């Protein structure tokens, strides 16, 4: 989450492969635009436009496109809420949406590809427990398969039992790719347990789990206090009654 923290790059995927997995344009194809470059457009004087430097994609007038990740509950390196905060603190000009099992980023296509590269090549991504999914995302809460892969009804990525590597055979939404994209070996499960941001423990009753109880109670208290505004109302009432001196 800390934007100054440098994430370890653990694999390298070439740009063209990322473009083909995203599936928004063919590799080598030029970016489609929705408006002319900003330099060529006439605007009324606006102080805000001088203050804010547009991101490269916006300058060029590129389309807004998306990338979406699903994170398995079984110790994926990141989880949706974390992703949202990270995206906000690290990248400019993103619109991100959080759902229980998946997280989408929308941004101009040019910038999207750079961001996707960062997200795919660093420890943010695990080939087995994280999935690049545009549609039919279901699977984050299901048991893993025998090779440790998260369920995917469209099976966009497959595990090669001989090489131990995972490769994408379909793009984000399930269209077959011409050449499979190798995304490397899944991370070690012990290592994932250490780096994951997900709190989970299996087969433990809620009442036996002290840490979880504490967290739930804290949230409950904070929500109740905040929601009813107990302190605020009291002070406000006192002020109205002239009792606040």
């Amino acid at each position: 989450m800390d934007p100054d923290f440098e994430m370890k790059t653990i694999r390298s995927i070439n740009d063209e492969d990322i473009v083909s997995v995203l599936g928004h344009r063919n590799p080598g194809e030029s970016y489609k635009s929705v408006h002319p470059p900003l330099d060529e457009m006439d605007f009324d004087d606006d102080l805000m436009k001088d203050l804010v430097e547009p991101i490269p994609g916006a300058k060029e007038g590129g389309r807004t496109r998306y990338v979406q990740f699903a994170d398995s509950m079984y110790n994926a390196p990141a989880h949706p809420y974390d992703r949202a905060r990270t995206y906000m603190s690290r990248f400019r000009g993103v619109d991100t949406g959080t759902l229980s099992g998946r997280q989408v980023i929308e941004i101009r296509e040019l910038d999207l590809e750079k961001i996707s590269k960062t997200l795919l090549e660093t420890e943010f991504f695990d080939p087995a427990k994280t999935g690049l999914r545009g549609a039919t995302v279901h699977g984050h809460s299901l048991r893993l398969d025998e090779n440790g892969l998260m369920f995917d009804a469209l099976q966009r990525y497959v595990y090669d039992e001989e090489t131990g590597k995972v490769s994408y055979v379909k793009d984000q939404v399930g269209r077959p790719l011409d050449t499979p994209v190798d995304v490397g070996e899944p991370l070690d499960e012990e290592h994932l347990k250490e780096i994951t941001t997900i709190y989970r423990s299996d087969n433990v009753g809620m009442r036996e789990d002290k840490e979880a109880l504490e967290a739930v109670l804290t949230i409950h208290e904070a929500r109740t206090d905040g929601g009813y505004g107990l302190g605020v109302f009291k002070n406000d009432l006192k002020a109205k009654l002239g009792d606040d001196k």
Partner: protein
Amino acid sequence: MEQIKAIDVRIFPHRRLKPETTEKILSELLDLEGVLRFLVNGESLPNVVGYGPARGTSVNHPDRKIITVKGKEVELLVSVGEIVVTIRHENLEDFVEKTKAILEETLNFGFDVGVGVFTRTKTTVSDHLKIGYGIEDDIDPSLIGLVDPKTNSKETVKLIGD
């Protein structure tokens, strides 16, 4: 019809099973005594992509395979997550013991084996709503709880053995 005492045994592996493993487990379980029927359950796998830009393209899921159990071909429509076996009550203890032994041998991860009633034993109100009253007279009682009465049982039910 002669009444028998039957009970369900539920096998719940901690990982989703590959078709090959399912095939192996099913074949070995079928050899045990007192087995009446199997319910292979799990997350269903589509044949074609249902929605999104890739709608209509075929999925070719590696888990949706045709497996051979006792010489009969069975198409797996799901990614196998649990297997419920209905057995004769008198074979229960022996069966559970042997099942555990088989699973320990074939699986390299954890599993749970539970005994109880895990399938429906009676037709329900929604069954009546779906296909109308009188369904009890039409349906083979051994199929109750095994399939959704509305599905095409030709696809989902396979008769193996005698």
